[in-house]
């Protein structure tokens, strides 16, 4: 089957029910989306599918319905996406393992709600961070939004 990932097309030979996460990581060597739980709970595997925030461990590769964006697709050349730049400015990551998922969720939130309230952030950012970077994530999102 043919997948479009970060504006490039890839031909993959995978079982239909193989989750997109493992297709990305093990077959295409795209390591930004991380494995955390495999049950759609933690969000470490978050990517955008046709713009929709998607937990890629829960989407069978045969059901991928549009182009996929992973964190590798965010920067424009050498320039970080505004959300990534805010993450650097606020020194958000600790172990960093959840952060590709957090950043993808924040990118989608800020696209849909350019000036989110605390409640909007709480609702949209349900990804788990075991290091407890939530206060910094919130500050970085507000910084990008200018709120």
């Amino acid at each position, binding site marked *: 089957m043919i997948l479009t990932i970060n504006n490039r097309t890839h031909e993959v030979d995978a079982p239909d029910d193989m989750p997109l996460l493992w297709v990305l990581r093990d077959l295409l060597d795209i390591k930004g989306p991380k494995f955390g739980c495999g049950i759609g709970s933690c969000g470490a595997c978050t990517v955008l599918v046709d713009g929709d925030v998607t937990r890629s461990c829960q989407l069978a590769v045969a059901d991928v319905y549009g182009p996929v964006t992973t964190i*590798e697709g965010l920067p424009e050349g050498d320039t970080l996406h505004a959300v*990534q730049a805010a993450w650097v400015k606020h020194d958000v990551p600790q172990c*960093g393992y959840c952060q590709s998922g957090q950043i993808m969720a924040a990118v989608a939130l800020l696209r849909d709600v350019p000036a989110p309230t605390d409640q909007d952030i709480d*609702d949209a950012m349900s990804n788990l961070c075991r290091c407890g970077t939530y206060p*910094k994530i919130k500050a970085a999102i507000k910084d990008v939004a200018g709120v």
Partner: protein
Amino acid sequence: MGRIAKYTRRGFLGLGAAAIGGLAVGYYYYKKPFPNPLEGMVGAGESTFNPYVIIGADNTITIYVPRAEMGQGIHTTLAALVAEELDVDFNEITVTQSPTAPAYYNEAQLREGAPFAPYDDGFLAESARNVFGAMGKFVALQSTGGSSATIDAYVKLRESGAAARLVLVQAAAARWGVGVDRLTTGGAMVHHPDGRSLTYGELAQDAAKLDAPSAPDLKPKSDWKLLGKSQKRVEILDKVTGGRIYGIDMQLPGMLYGTVVMSPRFGVGAVSADKAAALAVDGVTQVVDIETTTGKGFGIIATHTWAAFQGAQALAPVWEDAPYPPDSAGLMAMYDAALDAKASFTLGGNGDAAKALQSAPESDVFRAEYTVPYLAHSTMEPLNATAQFSDGQLTVWIGTQAPGVAQMRCADLLGIETDKVTVHTLRMGGGFGRRGEVDVPLYAAALAAKTGGKPIKVTWTREEDTRHDTYRPMAKGRFAAQLAPKQTHAALPRAIDVAVAAPSIVASLLTRTFPGIPAAGSDRSILDGAFGQPISWQDSRYSAHQVEAPVPVGFWRSVGNSVNGFFHETFMDEVAHQSGLSPISMRLRMLHDPRFLPANEIMTKVAEISRWREPLPDGVGQGFAMTLSFGTWVAEVVQVDMRDGPVKITNVWAVADPGQVLDPANFKTQIVSGIIYGLSAAMMQEITFANGQVQQGNFDDYDAMRMAQCPEIEVELLENAAKLGGAGEPGTPPAAAALGNAIFAASGQRLRDLPFGNTVDFY
């Protein structure tokens, strides 16, 4: 904020020594030093001065950091120690993980394993710490844990930087024919008063031939340019771009993928397993038996991880019955029995608490019992390791807190010499104490032995990870205090008698890590956080009742302090209320020892920033707790709002005193992280047993705090403590007690058993 240093992953890319190449000179301040492992790694034009620094002729300066980065910012802080004395800025250096070698042993971690309070500098305490420290060198534990990395490095790494700078200046002085005292450094160069300069790189080869001083003078604090200031994390760019830096991101040509299915009942194996069904899964190539000191079970080898996971499910093994009480209630009965039996040992204490409590009228005695459950570490990155066994050599790539131990045990498993095993330490998606265990590298090695020389990455499922942890022990505390006679107004309590039932973590660790070594002596972790706290009593006793429970237990962020911080600080809150005193003012009055000054200051400060004395609406409450752990004194106030019914944690104020703050922003971040970790456990986490196995498996039944539940957290730092304390763990111990005490203040409901979520609802 400082500038960002370059950050390399030489080891990760598998380039290693050959690609770098060089020249070496020894500088050590230990009497019988271990060899400098960088000597074998230097390339043409490069010089090494000690196990931490290589300087190239082109003035590239590489700092090798011996501790593992798991999110605590240690690579940045340790690099800053060397850079400060070498007199170079962050943008003039490259930071990288050191190789695995005995030169990097962690003395501080074992020193604080000795059974004395951290403020105790008595002769006995010091000599015990020295004996434990020497043991660290003996077994050469290059480990990261016990919040000890910075303490271990504080003098060692600054001396390394200073000594390297001194020989560079001496080399310049010789070349120019001037005295060293006329020369200055800066910008990775040595400067002549007439304006000439030589780069460190131009001097490195000469300098490396000189004998470095063994105890060079260190800069006074007032001259620090990097230390004491907040730095950007050296690895930040990787962490916002999905960088392939973690063990789980390992990719090698021809690599296979695997997973493990280990017995969920400890110490037993399988009765049967459907290997044919596993092999029938598309992509599964082999099912192998595993038997090590850490468990029995199976490994699945496949062409990708998903196939391995499906194969694991198809295998559906039937396991032997557990040879121990199969459920949580049965295990708890062992604790009650231990508490009723004679104490295994006591630590600290003064006077005769037993007599004081016996002779006091029962109306003046307050008693309470507390429990905490087993807990899993639940690191964000599931456990994994990659291994390759070919030509009698094993290479392991793993995010580990103890590479030296992994090396030793993997060599034993495969029957090869230790020097035939290379361990590359990779970045970790969280450690919290779990990633020092040997099971992960052992299983990877066991599978690598079956692949005909191909590398294999072994990834555990989240369920496998949760059900085969080395748990924070379950524990039970039986506390009693003699209060002042009822008629005396606002008088202080007089005596405390503490009994804690818990297993020995050290004994559990030794059986799986060094099976030959008997676990002698007392495991202070049973009482850590209860004894040796900054509190004065007329009489006090702290008794450990060691439980021989079958569940593997290990180091979980803040270890025994996470247990006793909750017990002791909840009890003290109860004692204050029983005595008709405010918890903070009572504690301020119980500091009759000049060494307790830091406690006075953190309590005063936390009361101030939390506006502790101001009245709050009904249904809103504040709770206080304080624990001294890993040399850092921490006071916390939690505020909850229960006006809508469920408990909403709205605020946390924390004041921490580690003696010396090397990187304020990172230190605060660590305290915040420790608080969230502790609150998560207090709210909702418990590992329970049925049928001899753990019932929880994934984040649906073992979750942690999410964004919507996260309070506002404010941290202040003080520097009154006499000794340097740790950062990664001390934020955790007071969190649960402060939360429970806040719930009591808001509702009048006293919670003595964790997690609180079993009794009250959280927002």
